[in-house]
């Protein structure tokens, strides 16, 4: 048994409760139920499966570590980059579609601008080890204000929890120092949005981490990451000429 399992499990159950708190009609709770199993046995079974299959493979490093970055750090940074793509995409789409009220748009515009800046910074650090953005399908979340707020709260909380899990696992102290500059901003986002929507901004004296594997499963269960449409081909054109 991994020595980190117990605290991670506790924190995930806690995060599941947090999600339930902001998720009155159960959409995200359903997601959380998949990502945050209620028994240690189920948790371990799913962890082994996730590590062997999708989650770990999706974000695996290619072995070509850049100077000053270990394979481990590249894997962590790539995971963070995909998460930033996901978050930045959510805020960008919501802002472009123009369905948010001015009050929500006020913070969504600022938080979105921060997430896009994070994305640029992590991509710059990864250099040739970067990964392209997946294609996202946010469904109605970017046009339904309530769903958008719930999703934003959940993602900001979870990102802060993830960075806490990753921090002690980073090899480079320079990357750790940089990651901490992101972490505090993500927690500010979480508290800010929580305050705006009437939730307790800082409910506990201590926060707990959420693992990368659990985060990957949560993202997968939202179905926000979609198959990339094939917009180009090599067949002979069937146009009138």
């Amino acid at each position, binding site marked *: 048994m991994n020595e980190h399992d117990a605290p991670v499990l506790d924190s995930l159950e806690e995060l599941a409760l947090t999600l339930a708190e902001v998720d009155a009609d159960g959409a995200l709770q359903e997601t959380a139920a998949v990502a945050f199993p209620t028994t240690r046995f189920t948790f371990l079974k799913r962890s082994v499966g996730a590590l062997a299959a999708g989650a770990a493979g999706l974000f695996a490093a290619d072995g070509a570590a850049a100077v000053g970055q270990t394979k481990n750090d590249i894997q962590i940074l790539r995971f963070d980059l995909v998460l930033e793509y996901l978050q930045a995409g959510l805020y960008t789409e919501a802002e*472009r579609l123009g369905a948010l009220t001015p009050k929500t748009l006020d913070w969504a515009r600022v938080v979105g601008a921060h997430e896009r800046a994070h994305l640029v910074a992590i991509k710059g*650090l990864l250099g040739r080890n970067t990964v392209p953005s997946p294609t996202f399908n946010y469904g109605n979340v970017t*046009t339904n204000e309530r769903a958008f707020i719930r999703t934003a709260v959940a993602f900001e909380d979870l990102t802060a929890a993830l960075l806490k899990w990753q921090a002690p696992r980073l090899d*480079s102290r320079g990357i750790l120092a940089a990651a901490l500059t992101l972490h505090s901003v993500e927690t500010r986002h979480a508290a800010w949005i929580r305050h705006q929507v009437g939730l307790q901004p800082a409910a506990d004296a201590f926060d707990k981490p959420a693992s990368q594997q659990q985060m990957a499963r949560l993202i997968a269960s939202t179905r926000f990451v979609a198959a990339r*449409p094939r917009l180009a081909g090599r067949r002979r054109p069937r*146009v009138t000429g």
Partner: protein
Amino acid sequence: MRRRAVVVALGLAAAVAFGVKAVQDAGGGAPAVDDSFATAVTELPGSARPAFRVGRPVLLDRRESRARFAPVLRSVEALAQPRPDSASVATIATETPEGTTNIVLILRAVSRQDGTWVHVRLPVLPNERTGWVPRSALGGYQFVHTQLIVERKRLTATLLRDGRPVFSARVGIGQPHWPTPAGEFYIRDKVSGFGDPFYGPVAFGTSARSAVLTDWPGGGFVGIHGTNEPELIPGRVSHGCIRMRNADILRLARLMPVGTPLTIR
């Protein structure tokens, strides 16, 4: 009475001064708490330089043009109104005649009790037809900031990005009996490497359709492509397609993403 108070105060001050002196003599001068901080700082290693610094927040440009499209996830009936009992306008397939993912240009969306409905431009005859489909039938939105304008009288094509021209070329259009249709359309796909010099190196499929060549393979869609007869451009020379010299279509292929709205006038 007053004199007695002054004497007491002087006595207290002397006692405090004596006490402070005694502490300083015993502890080397600085208060104990400051000593602790000084020791802790000297024992720490030097700080690591952050591997990256996050730059300024990246705000969206409010002047950007924002057309959006979405892939068709499942074959679906486009309806005249945004409700399930409305009449069907057309069936939308999941693939184009070139085997790429079919897409639709999004005009607007409405949320109702039975879900979100999206008003889309359709690649069907009569041209410029629109219809409503459930949001769930479509994939994620993708945004483009470009628009292609083809002027049939002037025989030109101009690509705008965020409203500013970034490309212009002379074109060939349909002969009078196979006219290139006018209207609002969009770019559906891009094909290359097919090895047919008649279409040049690159061809774009559009949602526009010839109203007369309906029996053409694929249904008579209007394309934008290169040519093996550059001397005919500009002119009214095609079966309805928009032809460009190969150098121009290659340049356009680098600048124009699939999903770009197309205006033919």
